[in-house]
């Protein structure tokens, strides 16, 4: 009896095997499509951002294919759900690597998953370009790791200079979300602001998932700042602004480029009137590549508003396509081609990669005026 049971148990394993047999490796046919992998949190806590990845990448591929593909070869997307979980990300990375048709990967959303995947991509010599991973050490993992979004080092110090040098604010309050993104943003903002001569009168943080900020805001109100820097994504920023308004905290707000989105205004209304942010991309952006993206996005996804994450993903796909166009279907050459990209006209601004494969872009200064994101007159 025991023997029978054991065989049964082993059979369970055997039965489980075919399930995994998806990653077989066949040589790609000559004219087979070029596959670009996308890994993003389609489900899970960050699903709302994964959606921007999906739409941004889909749009980019549609536009490329409408123009006849890359060097005449059509492009296909392979979207995998990582749930922003590093364990999932590693498996997806391995799938992409073992699939010879995949010429490059866009993703992941958060740093934890992106970095876990980067450990796999880098030695396997497959390009990974993350639109949003903000961990300072991300691209240092290997030669094949790129970003399409600027790092918070650039962005936050840009904001700090704007606030202190240009606007002359001296008493700054800071709140940030305690994840890798928020920490880096806050550190760089404070460093530059202090260097420019401002005083940080309050420094508060909260962990992802917290929604009641009244205690921190009351503290900030008492510190009496003349500028309030919000180092969060838009959803938390909307809550912060409305709660601050209810508490009677009247102060100029400033946040990172990720705030440059319409739902912020829809959710927070007059509470975010006058908020400042830098921008890689925003809906009202009038630069031709940005406007083109906005129009096409709204054509393809009627009823949805584009978001900078979608634009960054769109750019990431296009950057990859650019690399493939120059180098052909050769993973290693694609990397070299990409690393050499200069003055690429992206939806999120004109982009050049530095030696660390981080992009450098010129930011726009924008502000909510009359309940709309507009170029800041200052």
């Amino acid at each position, binding site marked *: 009896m*025991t*023997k029978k*049971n*054991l065989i049964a*148990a*082993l059979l*369970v*394993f055997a039965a*489980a*095997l075919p*399930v*995994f*047999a*998806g*990653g*077989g*490796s066949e040589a790609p046919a000559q004219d087979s499509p070029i596959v670009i992998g996308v890994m993003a949190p*389609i*489900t*899970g806590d960050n699903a709302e951002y994964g959606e921007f990845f999906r739409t941004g990448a889909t749009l980019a591929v549609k536009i490329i294919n409408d123009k006849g593909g890359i060097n005449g070869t059509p492009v296909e997307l392979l979207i*995998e*759900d990582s749930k922003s*979980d*590093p*364990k*999932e990300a*590693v*498996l997806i990375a*391995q*799938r992409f*690597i*073992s699939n010879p048709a995949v010429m490059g990967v866009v993703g992941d959303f958060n*740093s*934890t998953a992106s*970095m*876990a995947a980067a*450990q796999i991509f880098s*030695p396997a010599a497959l390009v990974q370009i993350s639109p949003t991973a903000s*961990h300072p*050490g991300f691209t240092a*993992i290997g030669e094949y790791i790129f970003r399409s979004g600027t790092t918070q080092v650039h962005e936050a110090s840009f904001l700090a200079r704007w606030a202190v040098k240009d606007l002359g604010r001296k008493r700054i309050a800071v709140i940030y979300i*305690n*994840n*890798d993104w*928020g*920490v*880096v943003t806050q550190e760089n903002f404070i460093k530059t602001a202090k260097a420019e001569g401002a005083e940080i009168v309050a420094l508060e943080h909260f*962990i*992802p998932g917290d929604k009641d900020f009244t205690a921190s805001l009351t503290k900030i109100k008492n510190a009496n700042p003349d500028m309030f820097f919000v180092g969060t994504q838009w959803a938390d920023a909307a809550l912060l602004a409305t709660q601050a308004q209810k508490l009677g905290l009247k102060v100029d707000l400033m946040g990172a480029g990720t705030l440059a989105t319409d739902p912020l205004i829809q959710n927070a209304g007059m509470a975010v009137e006058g908020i400042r942010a830098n921008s890689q991309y925003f809906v009202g952006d009038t630069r031709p590549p940005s406007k083109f993206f906005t129009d096409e996005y709204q054509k393809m996804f009627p009823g949805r508003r584009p978001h900078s994450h979608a634009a960054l993903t769109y750019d990431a796909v296009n950057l990859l396509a650019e690399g493939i166009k120059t180098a052909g279907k050769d993973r290693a050459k694609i990397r070299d081609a990409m690393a050499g990209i200069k003055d690429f006209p992206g939806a999120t601004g004109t982009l050049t990669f530095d030696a660390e494969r981080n992009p450098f872009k010129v930011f726009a200064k924008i502000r909510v005026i009359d309940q709309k994101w507009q170029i800041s007159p200052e």
Partner: protein
Amino acid sequence: MKKLSYALIRCAPILGALLFFCTLPLYVRSDYILRVFVQIGIYVLLTSSLNIVNGYTGLFSVGHAAFFGLGAYGSAIVCTKLNLSFWQGLPTGMLIASLAAYVIAKPTLRLKGVFLTLVTMGSNMIIMLVFLNWDSLTGGSLGIMGIPMPEIFGTKFLRPLPYYYLIIVADILVIVLLDRLMRSRFGLTLKAIREDERAASCNGINVARYKTMAFVMAAVIAGAAGSFYAHYYRYISPEAFNFTESFIIVTMLAFGGPGNILGPVVGAAILVGVTEAFRAFADYRMVFYGTLLVLMMIFRSKGLLGGREYSLTITWPPVKKTVYSKGDRFLDTEKEENDEPAAG
């Protein structure tokens, strides 16, 4: 000689499994599948260790990811800050996890039922918050990166293959040792506590002590899994060890069959397998997952393997079951002798 061949036959299923898994990479030439197996392997370690607490001792801990995280952080911190290797980080991680388990278990294990469950949940939360807030040591939300790869004789673990072998060996070792242990006096004691705590204490069992031992032992194994995890993914951050992770481990155990030595294997293999197989239906996957758990509890509340026990060793020649024969599960002797019929 005869003794050796006997031992070989006896251990045939274990050797078979070892052979099967060791040769698997020969005919499954896909790094992806190997990585799936490594992930299953990590979960087998975690679920097996939780099985000691939830399955054999009958407690209901939902904070196991805390020890997993402590193992990972312990190992990662000593390896990155003191420049040690995986082989030194591993015992450190295990030690830290077990110390934490002892500190948590000592005052709380006299609690029963729901209260204990809540303590484990609360400590999971607190330990995660410590990872998040103790920036100088744990890197806060930035986590720890650049954790060294394990190496053997100067060869680094670059590809998934060596990780696969490492985790397979660890899994089989843990399962075989646990199987032996759970059939021994110690295991029987834990089972007695699960069945009836009060009767156990009236039979001379120091319930709190054994519960603590079970808890610490589980933490040691979870800590080892954590250390492996850290050196495999080479980047860790607090969010990987919150109690969603604990829930996954609990669910795997419930699926496979708590209190069953092979339950964790089946649970981990199926749940990771299902997740991978349903990748195409990503949107509905989690709903499906939950529904499966609910249906499972309604129709097979003891897990897939149920309450049946599986033997990892076979007895040969098979002992004829007579009234006075000794069953394999009690005596672990290799000799077959005639028992004195103690009474007629």
